[in-house]
């Protein structure tokens, strides 16, 4: 409990660090909300017009004043108003988040359902041809850039079979589960492909390590069958690295998958941030990056808690 409190106490520190970095960085990028809105037409503005628009977008003060205002707003639970959406930043983020979360969960599910058995298979067939096949497949999976995979999937399905999940209007899970799943299954496969490959590799090597541990020998000496040894004794011990990897990947996925969202036209967090950067929607960039960082830290914390649940030897607070 105290450990949890102490971990949570670090959160604000890291978040302030993240916010300062993003605050300064986004303002160092040439161009601002005015050029984003007007493009080259911004050159037609008179100085007074420019000033008026600066006030409108809230970018008329030095950055530290802006930061101070923003931080004060944050303390009141207000992440500011997005200049492109004209809505509170938090509201926009929370609209997009369910999709990102669902996509991340779905990808992880695919990765674990495919990766763990494949890894176990590769470990138990280590010196056999079939095991090698799984390993090579995993490496190929890991080495395919996801945009190539996404484009290939879309092209093959649409040109070859004339089917494609509904693009454009995205249906949340609670409105139309079937349509929702249809829209997310391909992106999830795209993201889950490399993810599954990593899981396969890591579970294979973890299984190989664990299979040479003493307690596996003990289990065998008790007359536990090969299958029992693998699934009951070895696998639970091999899960720690799998959880670590899945946690990190999942944490990254919660930050949005920019390229995949772009290709499949999914309104997720990744595209939200990308568009916000391109449109110089400072409040939105800050809010979204902060939100993503927060999620990332929560996931890390959950991973640590998962360790404790998986392995009674691990105590919180010890590395």
């Amino acid at each position, binding site marked *: 409990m105290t450990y949890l409190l102490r971990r949570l106490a670090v959160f604000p520190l890291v978040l302030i660090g993240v916010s300062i970095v993003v605050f300064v960085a986004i303002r160092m990028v040439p161009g601002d909300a005015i050029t984003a809105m007007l493009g080259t037409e911004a050159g037609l503005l008179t100085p007074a017009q420019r000033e008026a628009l600066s006030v409108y977008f809230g970018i008329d003060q030095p950055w530290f004043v802006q930061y101070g205002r923003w931080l004060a707003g944050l303390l009141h639970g207000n992440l500011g108003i997005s200049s492109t959406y004209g809505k509170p930043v938090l509201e926009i983020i929370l609209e997009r988040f369910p999709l990102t979360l669902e996509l991340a969960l779905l990808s992880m599910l695919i990765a674990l359902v495919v990766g763990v058995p494949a890894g176990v298979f590769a470990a138990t067939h280590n010196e056999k041809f079939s095991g090698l096949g799984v390993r090579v497949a995993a490496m190929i999976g890991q080495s395919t850039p996801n945009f*190539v995979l996404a484009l290939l999937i879309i092209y093959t399905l649409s040109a070859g079979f004339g089917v494609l999940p509904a693009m454009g209007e995205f249906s949340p899970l609670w409105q139309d589960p079937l349509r929702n799943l249809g829209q997310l299954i391909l992106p999830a496969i795209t993201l889950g492909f490399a993810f599954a490959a990593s899981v396969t590799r890591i579970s294979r090597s973890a299984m190989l390590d664990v299979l040479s541990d003493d307690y596996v020998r003990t289990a065998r000496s008790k007359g536990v069958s090969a299958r029992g040894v693998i699934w009951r004794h070895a696998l639970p011990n091999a899960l720690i690295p799998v959880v670590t990897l899945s946690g990190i990947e999942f944490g990254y996925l919660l930050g949005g998958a920019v390229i995949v969202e772009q290709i499949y036209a999914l309104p997720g967090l990744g595209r939200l941030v990308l568009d916000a950067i391109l449109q110089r929607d400072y409040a939105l960039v800050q809010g979204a990056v902060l939100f993503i960082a927060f999620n990332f830290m929560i996931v890390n914390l959950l991973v640590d808690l998962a360790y404790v649940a998986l392995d009674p030897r691990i105590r919180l607070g010890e*590395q």
Partner: protein
Amino acid sequence: MRMLRAIFAHPSGRIGGFIVGLYLLLAVLGLLGLTPHNPLMQYRVDRLHAPDGTYWMGTDLFGRDVASRLMMGIGQSFTVAFFSVAFAALAGTVLGLAAAWFGRRWDGIVMRVMDVLLAFPAILLALLIVAVAGPGTWTSIVAIAIVYTPIFTRVVRGPALSLKAREFVDAARTFGSSSSYILTRHLLLNLVAPLTVQITLALAWALLTEAGLSFLGLGTQPPAASLGLMLSDSRNLMETAPWLMIFPGLAIMISILGFNLLGDALRDIFDPRMRRAIA
């Protein structure tokens, strides 16, 4: 030398080593301009020419020879991957060692800063860096290096902490060895193994990240070629000229396969358990 022999004794090391070696050769040839055609030469009458005896992998939108550009692209991608991973490994090693060695407050500060970097979505971090500094080879290198630094810091810090508690470090303290001696001889030297493995894997990831950056138009600048840029340029020509996607795609997959195989082999070679089995 001993290392090379060990790699070639290992089955996946042999394949991985061969692939990486081949790519290095292609990269060097590409960088030196020793390609079948001039990779920048636009044979405009032969635009989007399918692969044949003259153009082994066809030509692109400009009538440039894809095979030659592939070699150039491998050179460029490898340059970015190598430099970025080298910087990340260097910075990560220094920071990780410092965190492990000085402990307590320093550890806290360094690791929190790394948390900040880690908590940042990687592609966005790269995007911001590129947007601030303007695109180009060196910006890509720095961006990827910054993204990977926290990972190397973690990779170094963990083993460094356990090495610090090893008996030979205790022994060194009993003779009063200086911190710098212990850091370099006892810690760093023993970190070579985990670092080497991590470096090969990071190289594979760096290649993919470079491709991702180029896909978003933030990486290598035309007319230079990189594997990622070639892939990204090919996307709207996928149907018209599939060879534009197939060859760079295969090239990137095989190179990553090579690095991964090599990394696996190195892991086995460095793993004391394996070594005991060999000895």
